[in-house]
């Protein structure tokens, strides 16, 4: 009993470090090179305590390397990483209070579920009774009670995933690192696990750092998304921030889809507003969200509009002129029914082909039916216009 208490106090976070406001992870000007390849390029990032962070980017963007440096499997070529305020250069993985959920789970095949989950505790010499108790708790946390003696290969992908989670969380890590852990699951299970992971993170209050290339996954779960490309951070912020105010074309394209209309910035007003004259002669007002390139008057830019911000109606029904509403006439090329929504591709004279997504709400279905070849009017509020450097 005394041993158990002593162990618990050792494994919980140092309260002094938390009170001092040190972030759980601080990556200070870190570069990682593999030979001549730069995987991570002068990266600086602070990961606050208790939040769900996602590192999002295409493959090869440096997100997994960043994770492996935090875990201790790789050492930074330059720069320094701090865990709970302490520099960890040269500290091996097994001495870091950080745990990882691996991409393919890496469950030990010669051990059953309980032995897998209790592995971390056994390394610290926890008593058998204490281990059994905490393994039971951890399995309950991931809703796998009663699976203690199963062999790991008898479990489904989702169950293996939960064993891996329990095995990592049982050690009360400062940070839990997750390396695309849902990649091997089918879509439906993946969606369920996303919500479950988020709920689990709230429940245990441990900082999660989640690596993914799936923007939807990142949007669903994260408090903070860090978008990376070529080893650098392009933008960091909440899901709404990234979706509504992307700071570069890359971020706008990587998170969600957008319709780009090419043009030239002709006017910059206060409050980040600007006016673009498009190549085909429209004048569009919008917000200049691009703080990466911060375009000036005369620069070539694009106006990006999210497909769900556009609406499409039969040309005849179009009326009520409004200064803030942009209207473009066109013809439907293609309509794709996607179940919950319908995607239209509309050929327009003024803006090229536009992708429009419409929710299939009750009454919005076939009644207002427009089909291929029909003349339509595409309209949107100018607030949807994001001005970015193309």
């Amino acid at each position: 009993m005394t041993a158990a208490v002593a162990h618990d106090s050792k494994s919980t976070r140092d309260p002094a470090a938390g009170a001092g406001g040190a972030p759980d992870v601080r990556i200070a000007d870190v570069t990682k090179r593999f030979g001549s390849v730069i995987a991570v390029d002068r990266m600086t990032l602070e990961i606050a305590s208790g939040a769900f962070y996602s590192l999002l980017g295409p493959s090869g963007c440096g997100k997994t390397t960043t994770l492996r440096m935090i875990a201790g499997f790789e050492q930074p070529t330059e720069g320094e990483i701090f865990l709970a305020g302490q520099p960890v250069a040269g500290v091996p993985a097994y001495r870091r209070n950080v745990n990882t959920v691996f991409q393919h789970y890496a469950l030990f095949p010669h051990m059953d579920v309980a032995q897998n989950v209790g592995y971390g505790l056994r390394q610290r010499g926890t008593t058998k009774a204490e281990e059994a108790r905490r393994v039971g708790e951890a399995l309950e946390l991931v809703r796998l009670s009663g699976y203690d003696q199963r062999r790991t290969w008898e479990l489904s992908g989702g169950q293996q995933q939960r064993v891996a989670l329990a095995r990592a969380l049982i050690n009360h890590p400062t940070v839990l690192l997750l390396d695309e852990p849902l990649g091997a699951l089918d879509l439906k299970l993946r969606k369920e696990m996303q919500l479950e992971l988020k709920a689990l993170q709230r429940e245990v209050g441990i900082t999660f750092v989640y690596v993914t290339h799936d923007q939807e996954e990142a949007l669903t779960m994260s408090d903070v998304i860090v978008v990376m490309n070529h080893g650098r951070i392009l933008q960091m912020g909440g899901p709404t921030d990234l979706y509504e105010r992307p700071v570069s074309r890359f971020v706008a394209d990587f998170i969600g889809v957008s319709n780009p209309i090419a043009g030239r910035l002709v006017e910059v007003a206060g409050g980040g507003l600007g006016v673009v004259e498009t190549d085909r002669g429209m004048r569009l007002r919008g917000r200049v969200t691009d703080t990466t390139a911060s375009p000036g008057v005369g620069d070539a830019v694009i106006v990006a509009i999210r497909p769900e911000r556009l609406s499409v109606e039969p040309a005849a029904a179009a009326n009520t002129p409004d200064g803030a509403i942009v209207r473009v006439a066109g013809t439907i090329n293609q309509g794709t029914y996607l179940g919950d929504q319908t995607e239209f591709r509309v050929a327009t004279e003024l803006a090229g082909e536009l992708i429009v997504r419409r929710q299939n709400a009750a009454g919005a279905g076939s009644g207002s039916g427009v089909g291929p070849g029909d003349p339509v009017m595409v309209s949107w509020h100018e607030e949807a216009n994001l001005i970015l450097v193309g």
Partner: protein
Amino acid sequence: MTTGAAPAGRFAEGGRARSALLTGLLILPAGLWYALLLVAPLAIIVVFSFGVRAKNGGYAPAFTFDNYVTALQRTEPFVNSLVMAGAGTIGCLLVALPLAYFMATRAGSRKNLLVLLLVIPFWTSFLIRTYAWLIILNPDTGVAGWIQGLTGNEKFAILGSPFSVLIGLVYGYLPLMVFPLFVTLDRMDRTLVEASKDLGAGRWSTFRQITLPIALPGLVTGSILVFIPMMGEYVIPAILGYGRYYMMGNALVSSFLEARNWPAGSARAVGLILVMLVTVTFYLWFVNRGRRVREASVL
């Protein structure tokens, strides 16, 4: 109904008969091989072992246990073989484990080259490779001379000692230990090692708790592959041990070829087979028992 089912049944039966015939044909070569070259000689040995030596040597029919009594009275070759094969197996294991581990995990693109280098000695006759050790261990040209010079002990010799037999055994059978180990280690998922370290186990703990148990099937296979031929080894103790370290192989040769007492040799051969069976069975039982205990210890 019946008319419809009958032809179908006949076809199915015909198919079964054909597939049984095919299976029989496929098994036939191996079956003949085993019957002619394993079962028949074994039966002959067992029959001979109860016979007596004919006047001019060889076998004369009889039924007596005398040969077994004699064989058991001289236990030295059995003990020597067991000790030497055991030591040789451990020696192979100590050399093969780091080597196989290196090949499987650290060798990278040189992996295939290393496998090839391990196979190449097999292209040379076993006898020649064993004779080569005579030169290496020789006092005039080899290691023994160098150690003599170093220690000033003029009488120091390796050849003719049990140690030279051990060297020869470990050298000769090493690849049979390396390959099964290499295959199991090579197939092992490397992230398991990272996962173990991530969960707080150091290098040695990880090796003991993860790598070794996963490599265990290869280790068991390798041990049996080297232990059994080492038990019956004749050439190495004869050449490198100058015949002074008397193993079962040497005893068999002297019974059959020198004393021409086939029944005595047969009884010894049966004894050798029994010793090997008992040892290997015990070994497998021990290894599997260990595994079960480990599995049960946490529950």
